[in-house]
Each structure stands twice: as C-alpha cells, then as structure tokens.
C-alpha cells in the first residue's frame, strides 16, 4: 500500500491527479474500519490530515464554507449556533473520540446512506465543493449521492468543503438506533424551516440506497403553512396535516430489511420522527415569533 501525505491543498490535488486510485483518508473513522475488516485493500491512501486549508471555515457571500477536514466536535463547538441541525446530528456521531477525529468531508466521501451528517445537509440545501488539479465545482448535495456508498466525485477529485447558508429558522435532527448512544442509524430524519423563503427542507438517512430528501412532504407542508398564512402568523398546524407530512416522509423512503432493522419499521419510524421533529421545529417558530 502506498502512503501519500501532502502538506498543502495544491500538493494534495496534484497527488490525486497522479494517483486517481488513491483513497483519501481524514479522521480514518470509516476507512480504517474498512481496512481492518478486510473489506477494502486500497492500493494507495492519501492522508489529508496535514492539509491545513481543509480545517478552516469561513463565510463567502452569506454562505458558510466549511473545510472538509473540520471535525464533528468543532462543528458542535464552533458552528452549533449557525448550523443547529448539523450540530444535532454531529452530537449523535459515535463517541467523543470518534467526533474528535471524524469529519463531514469524510462522511460525504464515504457516502453511506447511514451517514449522520447527510440528512441535515439535505434539509438545508448544502453544496459540496469538489476540486481537482484542473479546477473546482460545486454540486448540490441533493445531486451528490448517486448510489449506495457512491457519490458524484470523479476519481481525480477531492472534497474541499461544503457550503451552506446559516440557519434561517428552526432545525431538528432525530435518529433511531437500538442503543441510547454510540449507534449507527436504523433511520434518521432532519428538518429545516426556512422562514424567509417559506420552505421546508427534509433529509432522510439510512432508509434507502442513498440519503434522500422527501420532496413531496416538503412541498406539502410548505403549502399548508402558506395557505393558512402560518408563516407570518404562527399558530397550531392541523394535526391531520402533520400526520400527512409524516406519511409523505415515510413514502419517500426506500428502505430494505437488514441487520439493523426492517423496512416496515423504518417507514413507520420515519413517519413518527417527521411528525415529532416538525412539531418541535414549529413550536420553536411559534415561541420565537
């Protein structure tokens, strides 16, 4: 196994261009498990932990641009106020040790349907910035996941950052696991209310071949809130509408039976999570209005 260790972003991109087969590694919380379990024997790995640029975050035209190497712990501590949904999801990632090592960039690179960061990135409409020696591009996260553990990256590209608008309303994240901590999602759900644009964003984890957005549910609920003028004058939402929202989220999932749970349970639980997280988010909206 060849071990590549660039110290600058430019060098990293050059190495990736020269070794398109090289597997990027940051926190190693996923890659090392794959190697230890003998599921992957990459011919080369490219260690990105020495690339300081990846560990930076800042603002750009009103968007937050967060380097791919920023850990979950830092997202919670440094960005929790501006990205509350992502911070809530980050708190459910593994143990403190894993959160100190693992990165959102790594989550995106692995593109597991169970990645905890994915639902809040979907619900808040994030962009993924991909770079190669020949330039960079930004892909909406809703177009980024193309199959089970597959994403839209070319093999000469690395993940530079993700971009997302700071919160524009209440956000929630909720994850079902059969243990009360340190657990991979049986299914998960994120919701973001964009009060300014009157939009509802959703993200579903671990209930399909890829992380998914429940687009019908988003449009339905945004419509309900619009029609009743509730965006401007927050009041009780019809429980039937909340129930319908849950059904539409469940319908958007494409779950399977596996070792962590059954497809039927995942759909059932997603409907519950969707109802609850919407209610919590809406309660927050009402309190703040």
């Amino acid at each position, binding site marked *: 196994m060849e071990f590549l260790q660039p110290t600058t972003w430019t060098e990293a991109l050059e190495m990736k261009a020269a070794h398109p087969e090289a597997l990027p590694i940051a926190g190693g919380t996923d890659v090392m498990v794959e190697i230890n379990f003998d599921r992957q024997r990459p011919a080369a790995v490219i260690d990105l932990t020495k690339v300081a640029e990846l560990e930076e975050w800042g603002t750009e035209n009103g968007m937050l641009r967060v380097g791919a190497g920023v850990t979950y712990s830092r997202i919670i501590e440094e960005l929790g106020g501006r990205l509350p949904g992502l911070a809530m999801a980050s*708190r459910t990632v593994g143990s403190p040790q894993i959160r100190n090592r693992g990165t959102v960039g790594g989550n995106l690179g692995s593109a597991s349907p169970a990645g905890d960061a994915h639902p809040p990135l979907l619900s808040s409409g994030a962009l993924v910035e991909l770079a190669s020696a020949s330039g960079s591009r930004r892909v909406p996260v809703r177009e980024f996941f193309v199959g089970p553990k597959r994403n839209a990256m070319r093999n000469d590209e690395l993940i530079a950052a993700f971009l997302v608008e700071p919160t524009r309303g209440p956000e929630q994240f909720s994850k079902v*696991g059969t243990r009360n*901590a340190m657990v991979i999602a049986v299914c998960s759900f994120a919701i973001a209310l964009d009060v300014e644009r009157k939009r509802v964003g959703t993200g579903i984890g671990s209930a399909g071949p890829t992380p998914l957005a429940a687009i019908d549910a988003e449009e339905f609920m945004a419509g309900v809130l619009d029609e009743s003028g509730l965006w401007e004058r927050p009041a009780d939402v019809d429980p039937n509408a909340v129930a319908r929202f849950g059904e539409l989220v469940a319908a958007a999932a494409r779950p399977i039976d596996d070792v962590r*749970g059954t497809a039927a349970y995942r759909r059932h639980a997603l409907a519950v999570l969707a109802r609850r997280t919407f209610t919590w988010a809406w309660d927050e909206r009402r309190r703040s209005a």
Partner: protein
Amino acid sequence: MKPKLPPAALMSGRVGEPVRRPDAALKTRGDFPYSSDLQVDGMLWGATVRSPHPYARIVSIDSTEARSMPGVRAVLTHDDVPGKKVYGLEIPDQPVLAIDVVRYWGEAVALVAADHPEQARRAAHAVRLEYEVLAPLTNPELALTENAPRLHPDGNITRAIKIRRGDQNARADVVVTGEYEVGMQDQAPLGPESGLAIPDGAGGVDLYIATQWLHIDRDQLAGVLGLPHEAVRLTMAGIGGAFGAREDLSMQAHACMLALRTGRPVKMSYSRAESFVGHVHRHPARMRYEHGATRDGKLVYVKARILLDGGAYASSSTAVISNACCFAVGPYECPNAIIDGWVVYTNNPPCGAMRGFGSVQNCYAHEAQMDKLAAALGMDPVELRIHNAMKTGSTLVTGQAVDGPVPVAELLSRIKVMPMPTAVSGDHLDLTQMPGGVSNTTHGEGVRRGVGYAVGFKNVGYSEGFNDYSTARVKLAVADGRPRVEVHTAGAEVGQGLVMVQAQIASTVLGVHDVVVLGADTQVGSSGSSSASRQTYITGGAVKAASEAVRDRVFALAESELSGLGRGGSGESDGWRLESDAIVSADGGVVITLATLLGEEVIEETREYRPRRTSRLDGETGQANAHMQFAFAAHRAVVDVDVELGLVKVVELATAQDVGKAINPQAVEGQLEGGAAQGLGLAVMEEIQVKDGVIRNPSFTDYLLPTTLDMPQLRMDVLELGDPNSPFGLKGVGEPPAISSGPAIVAAIRTATGREIKRVPVRPHDLTL
C-alpha cells in the same frame, strides 16, 4: 525468553474488607499487558483459514501458492495434527482443523505462520479450498426429526433430559401457557482470543494464554500435540474478559502446532470479526411452558419443553441443557413437573458456556409465566412469587432438598419496598434520560413507564457428579524484615477479583499484612475453571486450607522454639491466633512476632479443596442430588418505553442477592453491576444474528453492547446469610445478577406497552408493528 506478563501484586486486606483491584491503575492507563499484547523477539504470526460455508464437504486443499508467498514459514492442515485430531470439553467431537467436512461458518480449516501478520493473512487467503456445498441444517426443530441430515455419527441430539416429578396427570383450576424464544447472546469479551506459543527446543512447548482453566487446556493440548503433560506448560497471560468464552480451546492448539513445526515462537490474536467465530455463544432457546395453579395461587404443576440450539459442536452443551431443565421452574415450590429438554447439533455457530449457563434462558420463560399466572388469578405478581417461593428444605423438581438459606421470599420483599425512581420531570429536557438517548427521538411523546419483577437461581460449581477440586500452594517467609505470604494457584483472574479473594483469605487466616498472589500457571495443581461462580468457593477454600496448614506449622514451630528457650511446651498453642504479623495469645499479648520466629525459615504447604459430592441426573426421571450449592437473586426494573418508536430506556434496576458472605464487598458490587448490564444487553439489544448459518453482525458496530447511557444506576441490597457448608459461609456471586435482570426488564416493557413479548432481545419493531 519470556513475554511481559501482568505483575504479581502485593496486596493486603482481610476477609470482608473492600479491596481494590491491584491492576486497576494499569488497566485504566492502558498499561496492563493483555494476552493480545504478548510478544518476544523473532516471533512469527499465525493466521487461520476459515470455512466460508456453514456446511460443506472439503474436496481439496491446495496450499502450494500460500507456501511460496513471502515470509510464510508453515501452512498446516488436519494432516499435521500430531496427536488426537478432535477435542471437546465433554464430547471429543470438534476437529482441531476440519477433516473432510466443515460444520459451521468460520470453522478452522488450515493454519499459516509468517513473519508478519499481514503476510500470514494474505497467505491464508491464498490457501485454495474446494468445497462441495451442502444444505445447512439451521433449524433446531428440524434437527430433532428423522429426516434431518446427521451432523455427527450418533445423530443430532447432543443430550436429552427428562425430569418427572410427582403426579404426571395433575390438573389445576387455572392454567396458563406460553412460548418463548431467546436469541444468541455473545460473551463479547473485549480481549480477543490470543496467545503466544514458544517451543522449548526439546519437543515441548510453553504457551502464554488467556484462558479460564489452564489445566483442562493443558490436558487437551497434550492430547492434540501427542506430548506428555509435562512437555506442555501453560502460563496465564492478561485476560480481557471471559464470561464463558474462554472455556473451550480457540487458538491454543493452533499456535502450539505452528510453533512446534517452525521451531519459532508463534503469536496468534484474533480480529474482532474472527473472535465472533472463535468462541462459543449462549445457546438460543425455544421454550413452551404450561403452568397449573390452584385458585389461591399455589403452583400445582409445570410442564416445560426446552430446546437449545447447540450449533455444530458439543462444547459444554450437555451441562447447559441440564441446568436449563433442573431450574426450569424457577425458585418456586412445585410438587408436579414434566420437563423435557434437548440440546441439538445444527450448522449454526457452536454454543456453550456463558454466564448464567442455562438458567438465563429458562428464567425468561418461568418469570413470564408467573406474570401471566398472576394476571389470570388477579394477584399481584410479587405476591404470587412469594406465595410459591422455595425456602430452606424445599425440594427441587429433581427431588433434591435445598439446605442452607433460601431467601427467595425475602429477596422479593426487599426489592418490592425499595424506593422508586422519580418520574422524568417535564420542565427540563434531558435527552440522556429519554428512550433513544442523545439521538433526540422523543421529548416525552409516547413515553410510558413500566415496572417489572423477576427472581432466578442457579447452581454454584460443577454439578452431576463432577470431581471438582482446587489446589493452592501457600508460602510464608520473611522478606525485608516482614513476614510475607505468597499464594500460588492456577485460578484464572478473569476480572472477577479472584486475586483479591486469595490474598484476603490468606491474610485473614495467617494474620499477615503483606500477601503476594503469584501469576497462575501449570507449575501448581489445577484450580478448576473460573466458571459456574465457583472460584471464590473452591479456590478460596483451597487457599484457606493451605493457609491453615501453614498456620499449624507456624504454631508447631513456635511451640518447639519456645520450649527450647524454656518458655513453654507442647499444647501451649491452644488459644493462640495469628494477628498483625505475630502470634497472639488468648489474652491478646504478643507471644512472638512472625519475623522473629521465622528468621530464614520458609513454611510452604499445598492443599486441595473439594466441595461436597453430587450425582448425575437419573436418565428416566431426572431425579438426583445433582448440585452442591444454589445462589439466588431478584431484580426490579423500571423502564420507560417510547411506544411509538419501540425504544427503551431502563430507568433503574434494583437487586437483592444473598452472597452468603461478601469476601470483598467492592468486587461483589462489581459483579452485581456487570451481571445486570449483561442481562440488560440480552433483554434489549445483544444478539448474534444468524441467517442460513452465517453470522450477519460480527462486529461491535452491529452487535450492540450496553453503554453507560443504557445501563442505569443499580440499587443494591446485598444479604450475607451465611451458608453453613462453604468457606466463610460464602456463596458464588458472579452469575445470579445476569439471570433475573433481563426478565425483570422484559416484564417492565410488557407493563409499559401491554404487549405480550415472546422473544428477546426485544427489538423496536416487536413493540410497534
């Protein structure tokens, strides 16, 4: 050439005092040398080629390519086993390396030794195996039928048990029936199977190993290696948990074979995934029960049918099914019983010993039945249990009258009146206290609270006529001007605290402050297994006996020394005792200090200790005095269930247990907590999922163990009622906490949800769909 081993610890403390683990700091800092850390210069690494099929005929094995790979020193198959080609704790049915056929997924087929572990792993992949795949027998019910393939020459029934007690046609006013299923739990010791074999250059071998019983490993290895016992020497390495998983051989024979073949030290250490096929598991159970009772709630009869899936090889299955049947009714008086049990061979992973050993499975059934009966009778479930509780002199369904304290009613009464935890307050949201925990699944929605009770019991020590004993060597000498006791046994310190118990007993009997417990090895006689909650009783008994023999010699020496000085004579020692490093007379005066008395003298005695004998169950009736001691515990569980999501938060566990005498109260508390956590695991999350003979979750990512957010505070009431038959009146402590904790949790979930729940572990979809 010796690897680094856990240091012998200097300890002090008397029986009944809380004594801290001598290795606590090392373990906390990560400095404790576990068996997976063993190393010496020039050692090779072994790797195992394993079957990818649960059942297949081996057509051919071609190791040509593997042998030619860089760094590879040996590739071995069953042809290379020097002695007996099969082994087993009770039935020698398991090949050291598969011969002609593989019977479970992950069975060892061939071995590789290489300079580097990665070279060994790659060479293992390069051993070419051709299989003729057979349809696996994975349903234990089918294994009982005539048409099933015979997995072993004597058929698929490893052992059948029949217990017949009282009136076989008894009828009752109130009858409840139920079917229950228990999934496959893993001991999940954090330390993987690992060890280091070093050839001695004269045909023998030294094995450094983490095991529960050095001498039975030694005996089996001598057979497999075709060597005399003295040519196979075992030394205990640091053990990272056991719980029954280290009773059978795993890599022991393999490492020795590779070392003897290559003439080099060979280390083997399983990966986590490999560990899941490297040891036996708790038997999955299917149980059908019928309870009959009078209208006022007295048990009239119990009929039970218990089927355990033993997997591909016998291991300790024959003893597990015996326990499952002997204690099938629970700690209740029941005049009439028909109990039928079978443990069968299948092509599932082999099952054997795990903490609770047969009594865990049946407790889920008999306790669910008692709750059902209480509901049918309109009685309080605890009152019903107390109404039927065994007491001193009660007779088991096996006809054995139980002597000593039998505090079943008292344990239940005590947990019943313990204060209840407060309900979660609505004012302040603390996710860590919610079902689903920090994953933020509920802020109180759908949460209902339930309370459940359970009581269980089991035998302490080996049963059914087993010739059980332990050996201890105790030495008293002066070191640095102070008397010091050295205790040497082969007993395995698996984390339960045997080293402290040994030191405390020697210190108490000999009145000496400084005690060193030497590392365990086969240079001293057998201590038997660290299993069946037996070590404090039996090895403790051996240390007590050897210490008393040393004390007798100390007194004799003192009498003769003092009479030589004209200060007394024979018979003088009546009323003497040993205290504070000195001989003290009846009036409390120091007769002579041990340092003065001993000088250069070394007093050493070795003793064997045997508990009372037991006998084998009758083949037709299951009647016998099969067990030598019984231990009882009861649990209350308070559980919050999110009934919409099926997620569970165990809010509190409370327990009462009679330990006879708490030799080391701190270690007793550790056992009560750890056992309850393991019981909780089986109730709500721990299961090896096997499909078509293949383990689907051989990792700690998907085999979930309780975290500190899952295991609540344990409210403990430790009773010390004193058993008249045992050393210091003690009872075995380790297993009872793992028996009734889970059934209490499931009872609480039933109360919270109103659902029947026939299977553990309880999964979210069992509670919602």
